[in-house]
């Protein structure tokens, strides 16, 4: 481990020393973000935790600014968003940053989740770290869904109608739950008000869970592409400056792409129907959620039974909670799992195919394709992973991170 790890740092600045003696935030930063021993072999997949954090901050900052001009009322919400777009100084920029920020937050988080799956980051002793991450994903989905309702466009209204109606599939109490969620007999002003309140609240809940996620991460430290534990100082580097630089570089590249979308094609990932004000009496011909929900929407529609579809959709996130125990292999990284590596790729293709199924109306071959995709998704987690861990013969693990890195360097 890094040499100064464990000894309390000495601060030359008297103000910092005074504060740190009473509230050790500077010691904490020194220990967790400066000297923190981090595996020396990260690839760029390890950037996405930092990128997701940056996106969370951007979403909160732009969201707070938008809230100063937004009116959560059914007769004024749509117009207040148009006012932000046309009249408020640089309101268009803040709104486009927020709108595209949601997409890029999900891009970062989905890559982060893929990283965790491919390199087995959820395995012992990081199961709770993984579960906290799944909770963050669920909170993000709820926040994104409610945020999409706020502009009060046609897709806001009808997306909310379809998704809240999912709960009516629950036997006996379903409709009462839906009326309770709505605060009325249809999506209306009470619904918009509460969604606004929760959309403002939940990001701060996410910040809290992210803090727990980071605390859990810093107990055993990060996993790494080899999936083996560091065995000594030769296997690690201090977090700063090595990974502050690498993360900083990744963040900048990511932000360039994000800015490209925000400035040059801000509506590329949105639906044009949401620029029509919500009309409770007219349904758009084709209701689609935002792209990041499409695979789950496809799973919902793949099951011909209403309740069954709802259970499958929630189950598709539910299995992620069980992933640390469903995967029976003791080898973390897919690099050393010759069969799992390919099935992981198949799962990614499966989720993308499901996404396309979710984007198309459920007609023709899209229906059996979505059903096949759903079947494979659950097959991967519930059947393949438990069996594969038992029968797969992993490749020999390298003796240490340092040995592997130095061999590669020649």
């Amino acid at each position, binding site marked *: 481990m890094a040499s100064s790890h464990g000894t309390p740092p000495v601060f030359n600045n008297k103000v910092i020393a005074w504060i740190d003696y009473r509230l050790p935030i500077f010691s904490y930063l020194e220990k967790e973000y400066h000297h923190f021993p981090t595996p020396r072999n990260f690839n760029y997949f390890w950037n996405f935790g930092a990128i997701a954090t940056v996106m969370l901050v951007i979403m909160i900052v732009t969201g707070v600014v938008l809230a100063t001009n937004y009116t959560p009322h059914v007769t004024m919400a749509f117009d207040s968003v148009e006012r932000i777009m046309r009249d408020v100084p640089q309101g268009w920029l803040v709104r486009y940053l927020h709108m595209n920020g949601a997409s890029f937050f999900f891009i970062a988080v989905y890559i982060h989740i893929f990283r965790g799956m491919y390199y087995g980051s959820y395995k012992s002793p990081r199961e709770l770290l993984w579960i906290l991450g799944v909770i963050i994903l669920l909170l993000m989905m709820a926040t994104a869904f409610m945020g999409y309702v706020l502009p009060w466009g046609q897709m806001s209204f009808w997306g909310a*109608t379809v998704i809240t109606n999912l709960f009516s599939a629950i036997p006996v109490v379903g409709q009462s739950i839906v009326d309770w969620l709505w605060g009325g007999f249809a999506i209306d002003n009470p619904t918009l008000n509460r969604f606004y309140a929760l959309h403002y609240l939940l990001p701060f809940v996410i910040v809290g869970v992210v803090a727990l996620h980071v605390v859990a991460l810093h107990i055993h430290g990060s996993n790494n592409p080899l999936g083996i534990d560091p065995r000594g100082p030769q296997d690690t580097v201090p977090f700063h400056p090595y990974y502050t630089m690498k993360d900083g570089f990744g963040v900048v590249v990511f932000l360039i792409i994000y800015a490209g979308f925000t400035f040059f094609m801000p509506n590329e990932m949105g639906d044009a129907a949401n620029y029509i004000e919500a009309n409770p*009496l007219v349904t758009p011909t084709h209701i689609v959620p935002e792209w990041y929900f499409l695979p789950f929407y496809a799973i919902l529609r793949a099951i011909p039974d209403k309740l069954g579809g709802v259970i499958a959709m929630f189950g598709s996130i539910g299995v992620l909670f069980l992933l640390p125990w469903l995967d029976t292999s003791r080898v973390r990284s897919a690099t050393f799992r010759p069969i799992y590596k390919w099935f992981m790729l198949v799962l990614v293709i499966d989720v993308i195919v499901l996404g396309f199924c979710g984007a198309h109306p459920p007609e023709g071959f899209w229906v059996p394709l979505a059903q096949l995709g759903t079947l494979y998704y659950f097959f991967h987690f519930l059947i393949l992973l438990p069996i594969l861990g038992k029968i797969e013969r992993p490749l020999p693990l390298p003796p240490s991170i340092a040995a592997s890195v130095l061999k590669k360097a020649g």
Partner: protein
Amino acid sequence: MATSSMPADGHSDLTRRDFLMVATGALGGIGAVAAAWPLINNLNPAADTLALSSVEVNIQPIQVGQAVTVKWRGKPLFIRHRTPEEIKTAEAVPLSELRDPQTDNSRVTDTAKKVRPEWLIMIGVCTHLGCVPLGNKPGDPKGPFGGWFCPCHGSAYDTSGRIRQGPAPKNLEIPSYLFTTDTLVRVG
């Protein structure tokens, strides 16, 4: 338990303490639930929302074969003045062919038990996931059964508003309504 601070016969004292702990904890738990209820109930439909729950419609101007959409409880209400052929088709369907078996007569009866087959009054919300089916406006597609067609996921309803094809589980819902006069209907 710390035996040193207790007399040797402190055994009975221990169970009394346990009882008090459990009783206090249970009462506190009930209190917490009771305190949470107003906050949960706060999200239920408010009195003004409930007050809007009935609407009166003058049906005199609706011609035979015409349908109108009225907003009721924030949802579209379909009122269709059915043609004799439409009524005949709806009545001729055997119940065994229906997913949600209901006679046509039972769907055109008001709360005073008076049957008026020419007036079909329904909530225009698809029972699948809540879209508004097409078929009320003259140019709308009416689907393969001549009634309504939901564009979202392809559910088709017949001239009695009963589900005939597609993913919806139930017929279009009939609200409770009453003809206060021959030309005036109160819904809700």
